[in-house]
């Protein structure tokens, strides 16, 4: 067809179609008498148009699903079913049938009757089975579940006799307007409580969706529990029970659904609540659609929606708990914390999801349980709109005033960091003007002023007038305390002892003295109620020197109170012993304290689980008012990401940890990695084992021992690592086959294993410097590489012992070469030299390098450049015959870990196939809620 002919055809056709058929036909035939093909074409068009309606008449998208033709009886008011149930009014029509309000004439109560669509194909035998099931369902008795009283038949139809529930369905509610976060959470929690209950009774819902959720005055109620199955929806034409968009993949594929299928459906409902629209059924697109959900909740939803049931939440109760914890509802009275056993059980999965690390659970909880009951009430405070909390190590925690009326905290709006005041009982926090850069605020005893550190000044602000005055000069500020006599005791810098100054201002005078040989810092002072004694933390390298101390204002000599290694909050109480509250094993713990004898009690009470201990400064995020209000938590936890890159440096997957990691070490098969979790209090850590298939994170050593630097045993059946214990360092080998850990080497100097190849375990040792003078400004220590030679009765052998630092030794996979770093040219560079034989060193890095890693066949080295402005992972090929390293090739940038994360261990490792695993600081961490608790001694 050409355009010209087409135009002729159009004209002719348009004219022809206006005529009676026979005439139209004639017109065409005449017009195209000499053009056979166009004539046929036009005639065919006329014939086609005459055939009547065509799908082209209707726009394509005005579509309907071919519904099964299924009819439920229409009942008029007054109809009586089974001589007992009188239909009053039609309420709703749904996919399963029509619902009526009705009266049970026998029991004289209002009920609902659902007339179910006829199911012609359900055989009587099956029907009997369903009746059995109905009995199970009708046993369900829970405020969140609409009760099914009975299933009745009449005239071949089934009638579900149900509890009458007044309200609107969630589907209706959603179509009116979106729900707030708080409303959504409340509904979610209600639903999960109901699901949890039903699941425990062995009943699964199978068709959880908004139209099956009734919103009533007393909360959300689930309708149609298990009825999808009852109805035999899964029978005709292979259409699975349930509603496709809400159904778990296994339900659609028609394998047996279980409680986890309900979890999936719940996830779809929750996602719909939180985003306002159904999540995409395509997992690849779905997560992007969920990105508007606040982070912890988002992770929770994603876990609900896992394709594989094994990857989902396994239990509605756990899920509910996680949601409650993750949802920080500002100004909502959070329900009392409940069911701590569950919390404990949850801890493993929550560690990644809601950043809750709950360590071993112990007698402390039992002790807490014995405290006399009184309602514990919690409320959560989030940073004001548009602001963030800061990490507690930077800005200090939220602090309640002694009179219990206000909470002061530091928040950051863009780059502006200032104090904010949040009156208890008011929803509106207010910024305090002229408090820019404020950190670590503390209250005056009359609650009228707040002192804070700001730009090398100790300042105070009077709340009523807003007047800000300088008290004295300081350095960074490590806490202060203000007594009723107008004295302020504070710590000026992170390596200082305590000073004392008048709150009116003046020149500070030393209060305590630092024993520089053993102690690092005195900090976080707290006045006792007498205003004459100060509790404070001494930080020291060794355990015996660090802890909680007390000094009298008159002489300043520290007296040891106990092995408490965080700051304390002093809880003054009228009707019982005073308490000190502090952080221990990721928990806020309280111990009684005798304010006269200055002695601690024995029974620790766990007051709260901290989501994460996010401080390197020994500051406990807890304060207590004299009126007994406890405030804890908050901050912005430091996090890290563990990221897989392909060999070209493209990110392929990542996971988030609520803490920093280092010393990554992939197992030989690259299926798992050992890594060190940095306990930032002392720069040491504990060792974890991360598997990916399936994902599993296991703790190998606990934080108490302070273990670090894991390296795999050559057999892959365990690890060697260093343990900092009792002032000495042990190099320990552990095994996964249950053999008790074995100490390989014990030294007073710090020893750090860096590689274990065959019979050689290479380690770094920190020795007093032989040559470096203090005047060079360097530490008076040097680091050498040594090895344990298991082939020679585990003798230790010096490997590289120059006056410079030789570090980070890695043996090549062929066992012939050693890669390491040395700073003998003053810049740390990566070198390679023959391992345990003579030969010169080849320099690999050009402008400074560290953290060398061999490639799988010993032909290349990966390393990090040391340029702080251009820190990158490089790969350099080695020609070991010409003894030359090729020009390193940059693969991907790796940002510097935040202070005080020392680049002491490997931040990455490379798998045999060239994929790269990197631990990265997480720049997008989120504020954690501050929790305000009344009756904090009440059981949770």
């Amino acid at each position, binding site marked *: *067809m*050409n*355009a010209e002919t*087409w135009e002729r*055809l*159009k004209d002719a*056709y*348009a004219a022809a*179609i206006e005529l009676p058929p026979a005439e139209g036909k004639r017109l065409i035939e005449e017009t195209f008498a000499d053009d056979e093909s166009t004539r046929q*074409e036009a005639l*065919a*068009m*006329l*014939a*086609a*148009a005459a*055939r009547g309606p*065509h*799908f*082209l*008449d*209707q*726009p*394509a*998208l*005005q*579509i*309907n*699903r*071919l*519904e099964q*033709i299924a009819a439920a009886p229409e009942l008029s008011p007054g109809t009586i079913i089974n001589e007992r149930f009188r239909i009053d009014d039609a309420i709703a029509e749904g*996919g399963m049938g029509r619902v009526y309000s009705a009266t049970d004439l026998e029991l004289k109560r209002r009920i609902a009757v659902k007339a179910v669509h006829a199911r012609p194909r359900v055989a009587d035998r099956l029907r009997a089975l369903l009746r059995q099931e109905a009995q199970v369902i009708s046993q369900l008795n829970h405020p969140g579940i609409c009760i099914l009283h009975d299933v009745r038949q009449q005239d071949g139809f089934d009638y579900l006799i149900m509890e009458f529930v007044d309200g609107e369905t969630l*589907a209706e509610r959603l179509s009116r307007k979106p729900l707030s976060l708080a409303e959504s959470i409340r509904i979610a929690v209600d639903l999960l409580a109901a699901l949890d209950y039903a699941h425990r009774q062995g009943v699964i819902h199978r068709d959880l*969706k*908004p*139209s099956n959720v009734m919103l009533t005055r007393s909360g959300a109620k689930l309708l149609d529990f298990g009825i999808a199955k009852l109805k035999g929806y899964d029978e005709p*034409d*292979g*259409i699975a029970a349930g*509603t*496709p*968009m809400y159904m778990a993949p296994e339900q*659609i594929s028609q394998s047996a659904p279980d409680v986890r299928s309900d979890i999936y459906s719940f996830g779809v409902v929750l996602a719909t609540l939180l985003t306002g*629209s*159904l999540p*995409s*059924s395509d997992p690849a697109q779905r997560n992007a659609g969920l990105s508007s959900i606040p982070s912890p909740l988002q992770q929770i939803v994603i876990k609900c929606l896992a394709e594989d049931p094994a990857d989902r939440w396994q239990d509605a109760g756990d899920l509910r708990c996680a949601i409650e914890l993750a949802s920080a509802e500002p100004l909502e009275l959070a329900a009392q914390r409940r069911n701590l056993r569950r919390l404990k059980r949850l801890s493993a999965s929550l560690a990644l999801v809601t950043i809750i690390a709950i360590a071993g659970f112990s007698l402390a909880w039992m002790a807490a349980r014995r405290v006399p009951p009184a309602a514990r009430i919690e409320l959560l405070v989030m940073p004001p709109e548009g602001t963030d909390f800061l990490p507690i190590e930077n800005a200090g925690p939220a602090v309640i005033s002694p009179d219990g009326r206000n909470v002061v905290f530091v928040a950051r709006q863009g780059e502006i960091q200032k104090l904010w005041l949040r009156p208890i009982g008011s929803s509106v926090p207010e910024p305090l003007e002229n408090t820019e850069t404020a950190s670590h605020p503390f209250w005056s005893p009359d609650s009228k002023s707040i002192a804070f550190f700001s730009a090398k000044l100790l300042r105070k602000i009077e709340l009523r007038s807003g007047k800000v005055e300088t008290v004295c000069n300081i350095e960074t500020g490590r806490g202060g305390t203000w007594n009723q006599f107008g004295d302020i005791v504070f710590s000026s810098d992170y390596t200082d002892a305590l000073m004392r100054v008048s709150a009116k201002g003046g020149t500070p005078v030393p209060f305590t003295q630092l024993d520089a040989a053993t102690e690092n810092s005195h900090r976080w002072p707290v006045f006792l109620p007498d205003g004459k004694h100060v509790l404070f933390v001494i930080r020291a390298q060794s355990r015996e020197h660090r802890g909680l101390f007390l000094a009298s204002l008159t002489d300043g000599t520290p007296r040891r109170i106990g092995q408490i290694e965080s700051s304390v909050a002093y809880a003054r109480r009228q009707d019982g012993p005073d308490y000190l509250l502090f952080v221990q094993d990721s928990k806020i713990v309280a111990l009684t304290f005798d304010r006269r004898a200055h002695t601690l009690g024995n029974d620790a009470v766990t007051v709260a689980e901290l989501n994460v201990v996010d401080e390197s400064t020994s500051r406990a995020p807890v304060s207590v008012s004299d009126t007994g209000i406890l405030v804890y938590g908050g901050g912005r936890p430091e996090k890290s990401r563990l990221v897989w890159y392909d060999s070209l440096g493209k990110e392929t997957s990542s996971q988030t940890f609520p803490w920093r990691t280092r010393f990554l070490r992939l197992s030989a098969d690259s299926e798992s990695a050992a890594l060190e979790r940095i306990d930032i209090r002392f720069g040491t850590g504990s060792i974890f084992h991360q598997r990916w298939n399936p994902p599993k994170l296991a703790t190998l050593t606990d934080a108490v021992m302070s273990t670090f630097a894991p390296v795999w045993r050559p057999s892959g059946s365990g690890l060697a690592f260093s343990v900092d214990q009792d002032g000495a360092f042990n190099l320990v080998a552990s095994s996964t086959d249950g053999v008790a850990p074995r100490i390989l080497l014990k030294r007073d100097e710090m020893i750090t294993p860096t590689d274990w190849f065959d019979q050689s375990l290479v380690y770094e040792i920190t020795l007093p410097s032989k040559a470096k003078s203090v005047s060079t400004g360097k530490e008076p220590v040097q680091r050498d590489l040594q090895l344990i030679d298991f082939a020679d009765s585990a003798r230790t052998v010096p490997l590289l012992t120059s006056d410079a630092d030789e570090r980070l030794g890695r043996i090549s996979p062929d066992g012939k070469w050693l890669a390491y770093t040395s700073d003998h040219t003053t810049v740390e560079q990566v070198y390679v030299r023959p391992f345990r034989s003579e030969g010169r060193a080849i320099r690999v890095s050009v402008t400074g390098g560290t953290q060398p890693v061999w490639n799988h066949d010993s032909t290349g080295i990966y390393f990090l450049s040391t340029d702080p402005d251009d820190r990158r992972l490089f790969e350099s090929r080695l020609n070991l015959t010409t003894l030359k390293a090729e020009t390193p090739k940059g693969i991907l940038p790796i940002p510097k870990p935040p202070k005080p994360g020392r680049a002491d261990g490997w931040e990455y490792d490379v798998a045999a196939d060239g994929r790269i695993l990197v631990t990265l600081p997480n720049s997008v961490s989120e504020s954690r809620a501050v929790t305000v608790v009344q009756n904090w001694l009440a059981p949770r």
Partner: protein
Amino acid sequence: MTDSSNDITELLNKTVKGDRLAESALLELIYEELHRLAASQMRRERYDHTLQPTALLNEAYMRLFDQPNRTWANRSHFFAVSAKVMRNILIDHARHHQSQKQGGGIPRLALTDVQGSILAADADLIALDTALDKLSTWDPRQVRIVELRFFAGLTEEEIGKVLDIGTRTVKREWAVAKAWLQKELASSV
């Protein structure tokens, strides 16, 4: 107005001037948005909700431009571009369903009328796509009309505005195009 709607306006203006690159960029944007909207609507709770293509387009338009009252000139052009996109989406769906049918899987969506009788099967849509490609070789404008009417659900008046032609012309062109397509589809089965 958001940044992205600025971008889109810019793209739209460029396409008016005949910038092919801008048009393909715009197509991609609209495609994404429409696809998302259509997918979410198709998976609304009950399948028997009617999907109104114009409503869909309107929503996409509002979302993309973030402004309720933009001039008709922009809007019509947007609709013209969108109609193409809708065609792609629906044909893709049909192809997808067809391939799924062979592998079993989820109950498929068919084009049916309100009474539930099938109006267009996947095969019809795919045949329509082929026929439109053929038609476009000698009457591209007619293809636009079909796209606007059948895929984007516009009325004849609206189509007239979009293509800047009279309603009568639209009517006539549509009648011819439909007849020809009906003929093509009948012979392709």
